[in-house]
């Protein structure tokens, strides 16, 4: 055992390096140019950043063509220099990207729906604004009904607009909003079912959740489009968009259920027992005590599900419903706008929209998370 004796330090420890100074230069030296290896890394990353950012900037702004009426205006031969983004292409196709083939004279209805939605949504997202309960009832209860009749029409003298004519960003937003609105309550119910003590309810919930989580969304959309009509009476004519919506809601509800379940598991037993001791029944215990706490805990997870739902709406183009990406793809095949830069311009435009919405949502989730943390730290 002698050779396994403990280690005793005999020499003095080397002094630690002096603390980093306060100035910007000193901090830069410590974080960027600290040793040869670090300096090389810094130079390489700076080169990569410049090689990516500068051409993008040049393409989108400096070299871009801003005015024009056809592909000729975006050809290098006509312009006489290197051509960046061809923005006239976006201008020409803008209506299609936003509304699909929604009739021109009725597009104000779409805009009105957007405005109503924004007016109700913005105060809901700002924590300081009072009247959350009324606001939520209006946004989740009244707005969908109003929006539905505004967009579909057929009442109050509004002409009916077939969903087949809808397209572009309108479809993207309608699918996202419907998915979000129905998947959260359905997901919460499924999560309660999965945590239930009643064996049949628990088993059915587990089967439902695991089934939808185990298959890709595309097969769900194929299922909704090709298989669902077989299971319903032949006399039922279900709208193609409605079928897809059913598929998306069921699919995202299963994911939502797992997020909510995470929140439910984090609630201490004492909360359940306290509620029961007060004589609350199951639904009141869940509705008044457990779910409000559980949902608050998982707000970031819920928003993340919303983000993936928003991104997943692009898949509907595979079953011939033309959302923003679908319209973009259709616009690429227009020979009037066939230029070497059309593709990149289109992708840049759609990419910016998708990025802004997803990034905005993820920042909001982060903001809520921080707020919750400070409240809990107190």
């Amino acid at each position, binding site marked *: 055992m002698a050779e396994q004796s403990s280690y005793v330090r005999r020499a003095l420890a080397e002094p630690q390096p002096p603390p980093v100074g306060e100035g910007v230069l000193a901090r830069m030296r410590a974080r960027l140019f600290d040793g040869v290896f670090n300096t090389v890394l810094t130079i390489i990353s700076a080169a990569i950043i410049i090689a990516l950012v500068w051409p993008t900037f040049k393409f989108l702004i400096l070299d871009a063509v801003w005015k024009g009426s056809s592909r000729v205006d975006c050809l290098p031969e006509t312009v006489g220099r290197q051509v960046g983004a061809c923005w006239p292409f976006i201008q020409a196709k803008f209506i299609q990207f936003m509304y699909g083939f929604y009739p021109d004279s009725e597009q104000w209805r779409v805009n009105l729906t957007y405005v109503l939605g924004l007016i109700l949504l913005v105060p809901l997202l700002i924590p300081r604004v009072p009247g959350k309960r009324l606001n939520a009832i209006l946004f989740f209860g009244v707005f969908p009904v109003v929006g539905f009749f505004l967009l579909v029409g057929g009442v109050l003298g509004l002409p009916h607009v077939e969903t087949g004519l809808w397209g572009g960003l309108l479809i993207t937003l309608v699918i996202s909003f419907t998915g979000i609105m129905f998947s959260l309550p359905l997901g919460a119910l499924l999560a309660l079912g999965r945590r239930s003590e*009643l064996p*049949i309810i628990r088993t059915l919930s587990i089967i439902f959740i695991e089934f939808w989580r185990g298959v890709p969304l595309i*097969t769900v959309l194929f299922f909704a489009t090709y298989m669902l009509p*077989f299971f319903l009476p032949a006399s039922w004519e279900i709208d193609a968009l409605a079928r897809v919506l059913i598929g998306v809601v069921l699919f995202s509800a299963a994911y939502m259920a797992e997020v909510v379940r995470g929140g439910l598991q984090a609630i201490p037993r004492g909360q359940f027992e306290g509620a029961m001791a007060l004589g609350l029944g199951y639904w009141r215990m869940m509705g008044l005590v457990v779910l409000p706490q559980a949902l608050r805990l998982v707000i970031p997870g819920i928003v993340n599900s919303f983000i993936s739902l928003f991104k997943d709406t*692009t898949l509907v183009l595979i079953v011939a419903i033309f959302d923003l990406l679908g319209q973009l793809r259709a616009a690429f095949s227009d020979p009037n706008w066939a230029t070497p830069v059309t593709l990149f311009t289109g992708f840049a435009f759609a990419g910016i929209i998708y990025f802004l919405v*997803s990034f905005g949502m993820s920042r909001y989730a982060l903001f809520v998370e921080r707020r919750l943390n400070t409240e809990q730290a107190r």
Partner: protein
Amino acid sequence: MSVQIERAAAPPRVAAYNNPKVRAVFYQLVLLALVLWFGYEFALNAKANLDAQRITSGFGFLDTTAGFSVNQSLIPYNETDTYGRVFLVGLLNTLLVAGIGIVLATTLGFIIGITRLSPNWLIARLAGGYVELIRNLPLLFQILFWYLAVLGTLPGPRQSISIFGEIFLNNRGVIVPAPVAGEGAGYVVAAFALGVIAAIALRFWVRRRQDRTGQPFPLFWTCLALVVGLPLVVLVATGFPISFQKPELRGFNFVGGIRLLPEFVALLIALATYTAAFIAEIVRAGILAVPRGQTEAALALGLRRGATLRLIVVPQALRVIIPPLTNQYLNLTKNSSLAVAVGYPDLVAVFAGTTLSQTGQAIEIIAITMAVYLAISLITSALMNWYNAHIRVAER
């Protein structure tokens, strides 16, 4: 001082409809009845609709001739083969893109995840920018971008972009050198297999010996020698039986080498870079989840930096990383079904796409396709549960 508690009298009798147990059974039976009724109605409707459209249900169509060609197949396939064979071709193509995608995504994801934790501010920001950009754009958008905007705008075969004269990029795909197995290549493969088995056995033995006697063993280097060195030695000894056939431009196209379809390359790049962004976040979270005290304690015990990482940090980080990592692998496999958007012949494209539109057997085909993905998911999560139970920290 003792308190006497009166024994509670028998619980008051309540009406049956107020008894929670009776209620529970009742509600469950109602739900079950509803589900069964729905199923029954669905089945009735399906039968009526199929009869009306004169579609014969059943899986007989799997034996009929497909009559269409598939542009990439890992097994011999031609137009006279059956739909059953088409299913197999599609499934193998799905597994191929998913398998390669997982390897690429993991490598890239770990590199970016670790880079995000780098003390170098700039490179950490660069990695962060990558993650934010990629995560916030839809995957289908990225697949179409790679397919249409990047690979679609490459020059024709005669103006191919060449990388070191070995790999050629053009609008018909990516052409890479093909490995050609000559006489004796089997020995190299056998040596590799032998090396892997020997390494696993060695690891087992070393663990047991160390547990018993505490004697360490340079496991990593020995295993490396067995797995890599042994096949290399055999390769040299048999006189390099494996060679690479270089692609060559003849006329308007390339001869030799392996041509990777642009659909395959676009899908693979998009899947790998997209999933890598998520894996990077998982890796970062996993490493951050190991408390600093663990590293400090290990250093205080006199472990070297390398040993601290290998024995203390990585095992604890992996415990956090692996479950969500498996989830990402599953996501990648499921997302590979987006192949249908660019026409890569995966399971969904050739089976749930072409075969469905030719035969009209919607119920059977979609059920089979869903069942395949479901089986992959359930098997993986079963393995995951077993693994989680296996590595769980034993508390008291």
